[in-house]
């Protein structure tokens, strides 16, 4: 007897339904990742014993079990990796210094294109923003930039744990 009271098809159907209910765009992204399929190497059988069997590549759909893993990989990319990118960038920026052109107080001089610079903020988190309204964009509505914010490691660990639980729940290898 298996350890699941459901099969991979039911699990995939449920996951896609829950995703669609929560955010249709995210469901589309996950579905696209699944629908990309995979490359496999096929062997063409031969009746001629002196001829080697021919191998060729073929793109095939993922199995339901693989599709579930692909779906979780996609969710992991958004729910875990994206916060990690922001955190890693924040760490790197914190260890850099801010070069302030001369009109402000001098503390440490370096030679650059703007002449002497004051170096500030080494070891301190920096405000990092990503431009949303680009310079060539004609219609400007909504926010101009979005801050790249650090997320607590605790929350990231929680999501890693949740993904790990789900990976166990969609592992049908022991059934």
């Amino acid at each position, binding site marked *: 007897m298996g350890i699941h*009271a459901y099969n991979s098809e039911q699990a995939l159907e449920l996951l896609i339904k*829950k995703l669609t209910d929560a955010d249709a765009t995210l469901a589309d992204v996950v579905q696209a*990742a699944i629908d990309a399929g995979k490359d496999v190497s096929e062997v063409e059988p031969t009746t001629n014993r002196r001829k080697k069997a021919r191998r060729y590549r073929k793109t095939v759909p993922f199995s339901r079990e693989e599709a579930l893993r692909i779906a979780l990989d996609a969710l992991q990319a958004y729910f875990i990796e994206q916060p990690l990118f*922001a955190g890693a*960038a924040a760490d790197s920026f914190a260890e850099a*210094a801010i070069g302030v052109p001369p009109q402000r107080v001098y503390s440490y001089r370096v030679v650059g294109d703007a002449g002497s610079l004051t170096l500030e903020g080494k070891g301190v988190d920096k405000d*990092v923003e990503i*431009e949303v309204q680009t310079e060539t964009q004609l219609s400007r509505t909504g926010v101009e930039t979005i801050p790249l914010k650090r997320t607590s490691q605790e929350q990231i660990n929680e999501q890693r744990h949740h993904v790990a639980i789900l990976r166990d729940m969609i592992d049908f290898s022991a059934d």
Partner: protein
Amino acid sequence: MATLADLESAIDVLLNHPLGVSQYQLVRSIEEKAYEAYVFGLCLRAVRELGVTPILRSISGPPIPFVFRGAPGQIHSRSRNYGYAEFTLNGQDFEIHAGVEFRGTSGMTHELDVCIIRGLDARACRNPQSLDDPHAAGLVGGWECKFYAGNLQKVLGRAFVGLIDDMGSNVRLTGLCSNSHHPQLRDYFQPQRRPYPHLRLTPLDSSNENIFVNQIKGELKKMTAA
């Protein structure tokens, strides 16, 4: 035995977490740029590990906040106070940029998601008397950065190989960086002078981060050695 109700509840916990669907909705418009910021940060780390403190600058005034371009643009653009980093190693100046357009050897312009350029060339292009796109000759390293929730697309690798081919022979480091991968791309990048496949470059795999950082450190050390 796990039931469908158990599975549904586990999915709900994942999606309803603060880093669940709401996180996706927050980052979806900047997911690519956030990945570029991460790779830019790895370049800063490489510089720091060479014993040099990178200095954050911007086109006008202090980089507060430090702004990443949302689309390809000119190195001299003052449309916003775009940020970059500069550093000096063994007497040679360099700058790290994101989303800056270069002039290829053919004359066509190309955007590099993250790049390291010689400081002299970057400053010349920002000089009000000689505003220009940086030329391929001043490029030290260039990286294409792709965040993907699924498998990477092969076409991205082909396009980047074409771009790098137009950047001349001075460029020392090139790579396609992605949190994802494609089984065939690693083979496609094997021939000499092709970009390095920095696939699965993510904080979840520190060994891949170290390869990226060490390549930069090695090349910068080599090119600035007396």
